[in-house]
């Protein structure tokens, strides 16, 4: 076991992938000498050379489209998108090419491309640097979408994503880059499969589903609720496509209550899909409607308003109260169905 930051764990995971398979190449803006604006690729160009760790011209469609060609040639490209808000110029190549080429070619051409995206808010950044675009990709057939929440998962999941023969959108919780944790660097071979969720804390009263940056907040919620006598079960979703509904379903059949939280806008966000699917699967077990605690349906606001925008301990606790039929800001006192 080694103590690592989440950023350091990603760096080490990338290094191992580069070492393991010479077809792995990293592409992105400023990932070479600079090591990326978040230093996730720190020293990798020095170690593996400019042929394996490639600074590209400043164009996201170019990065993704070039990666597609490399993949057709048998490479395993790992693209870095510098910030969440800069993925959109590459959207067409992702949605119309990366996602569809395996289908289009009837399985003859594989697209083992990993697209790394530092995402989410909470770092006081300027516009386009705090977005949560994951739902766009989870709605896109042909893509796998994952998000890690801690150093151990960061370390394993980045290697699993790169090893996958399918394209993976890999969302990194940027405000947790400096969060430290124990990492068993040898665990990777036996790590949890990429598409699987994980129950981080068990509890019998309410299921709380989170991913990426809000997993830590969710654990804080569970601790605060415990003080209040409420046992919250925290599920770290890890994978957004596919969603591991079996794990969520098992939890909700136990608790009867579901709260989902994410930073992305509420309308059409992951919370909608999870609430809808779990209602389909667990209707007879639900004691209350699943509640969503999310970013608002607004652009990500200026830094001094992000505190208002981002789901936090209090807002999530308010929703926990709501599904429990306790006094809350939305319904006041109300018994559950």
């Amino acid at each position: 076991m080694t103590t690592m930051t989440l950023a350091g764990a990603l760096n080490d995971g990338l290094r191992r992938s580069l070492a393991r398979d010479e077809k792995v190449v990293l592409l992105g803006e400023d990932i070479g000498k600079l090591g990326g604006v978040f230093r996730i690729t720190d020293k990798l160009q020095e170690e593996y050379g400019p042929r394996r760790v490639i600074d590209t011209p400043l164009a996201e469609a170019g990065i993704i489209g070039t990666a597609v060609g490399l993949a057709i040639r048998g490479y395993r490209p790992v693209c870095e998108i510098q910030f969440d808000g800069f993925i959109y110029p590459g959207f067409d190549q992702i949605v119309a090419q990366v996602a569809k080429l395996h289908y289009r070619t009837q399985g003859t051409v594989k697209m083992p491309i990993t697209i790394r995206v530092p995402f989410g808010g909470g770092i006081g950044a300027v516009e386009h640097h705090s977005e949560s675009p994951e739902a766009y990709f989870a709605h896109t057939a042909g893509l796998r979408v994952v998000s890690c929440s801690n150093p151990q998962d960061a370390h394993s999941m980045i290697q699993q994503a790169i090893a996958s023969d399918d394209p993976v959108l890999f969302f990194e919780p940027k405000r947790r880059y400096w969060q430290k944790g124990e990492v068993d660097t040898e665990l990777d071979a036996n790590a949890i499969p990429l598409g699987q969720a994980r129950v981080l804390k068990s509890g019998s009263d309410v299921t709380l589903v989170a991913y990426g940056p809000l997993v830590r907040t969710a654990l804080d919620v569970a601790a605060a609720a415990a003080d209040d006598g409420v046992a919250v079960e925290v599920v770290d979703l890890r994978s957004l496509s596919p969603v591991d509904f079996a794990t969520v379903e098992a939890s909700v059949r136990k608790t009867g209550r579901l709260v989902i939280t994410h930073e992305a806008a509420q309308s059409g966000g992951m919370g909608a899909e999870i609430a809808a699917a779990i209602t389909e699967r667990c209707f007879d077990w639900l004691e209350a409607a699943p509640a969503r605690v999310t970013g608002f349906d607004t652009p990500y606001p200026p830094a001094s308003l992000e505190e208002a925008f981002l789901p936090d301990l209090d807002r999530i606790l308010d929703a926990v109260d709501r599904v429990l039929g306790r006094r809350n800001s939305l319904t006041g006192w109300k018994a559950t169905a």
Partner: protein
Amino acid sequence: MSTTHEGTRTHEAHEDITALLKLEDVVQLISPTGERQSSPGFDSWVDDVTTEQLADLYEDMVVVRRIDTEATALQRQGELGLWPPLLGQEAAQIGSARALRSDDFVFSSYRENGVAYCRGVNFTDLMRVWRGTAASGWNPYEVGMATPAVIIGAQTLHATGYALGCQFDGSDSVAIAYFGDGATSQGDVNEAMVFAASFQAPVVFFCQNNQWAISEPVGLQSKRHLSDRAPGFGIPSMRVDGNDVLAVMAATRIALDRARTGGGPTFIEAVTYRMGPHTTSDDPTRYRSASELDEWRAKDPITRLAALLESRGVFPDELGSRVNSKADAVARDMRAGCLSIAKPNPLSVFENVFAEPHSGLERQKSQYAAYLASFDSDPDASTQGDRS
């Protein structure tokens, strides 16, 4: 099928294409009336092409035109959903494709059926997409050609990335991207030039300027020759008569040679004309004049090659009947193949979305299977009953 003419020699003059081009606006080696023109710097790249090989090229062009006619007929008869004719662009496609090696890799748009033919794509496979029975017709690795890209320009980046891979591998294989005049306006095509120049990727950008992007004339896309664009990106370019199979072949060989020998990307503008509609759904009379079409008919790529062959003493009748019977046979095979393509099984809609299992999709598949099965088990379950 004809022999592949591979331009493998290196050539001292190829370094300064731009200087070459100062001499002439459009490189032409066969005039519209079939005379062999001399063009310094280009001639030597096709010196080795024998009259027999020219006859093979002629055959290719006639055959792909016949494929085109047959496919158009199949569409009119309701056997294909759509067809994008290449009528008029035979020289551009055959001249370039026959310059390739089998280990080169083609990234094309939807209209390059002539190129696909040269790559050895089976006639029936050519039809699958347009018959609507499959997302694509062939395995790209078997023929060295990606399945067509419909999103305009997207494939130019793929070609660039593939070429970069060839460079990494230390291979001298080359990627060639085919695209139209309209495509040059897309960001992707310009980014492809940026990336290709930056990495000196061994890629050939082959632009068939057929004067039209559906109803939009090339003048709407650019006020300058399209070949003028690339040099500003650091990519040398050539402008050739796209209805002249020899000129196209010479230019492509120059570009391939540059790429193979570390010279990086090259841009070729093949000036040609789309003599048919954009696709079988299009009505070109809404936007262009009959006289324009007549003008280009006089520059037909096949007639001029026939004239040249005739002047070389290749009996046109003999050649003509050999070629026509080949074309007839291909058309017959194609029609039979097309009609034999089976409708896929409904559950195949779920196949190949992913390379590895995806729990969400598997659930949908099994639910749909159960749904389909419900008609079998109980015909009354359906109000319509049209599936049972």
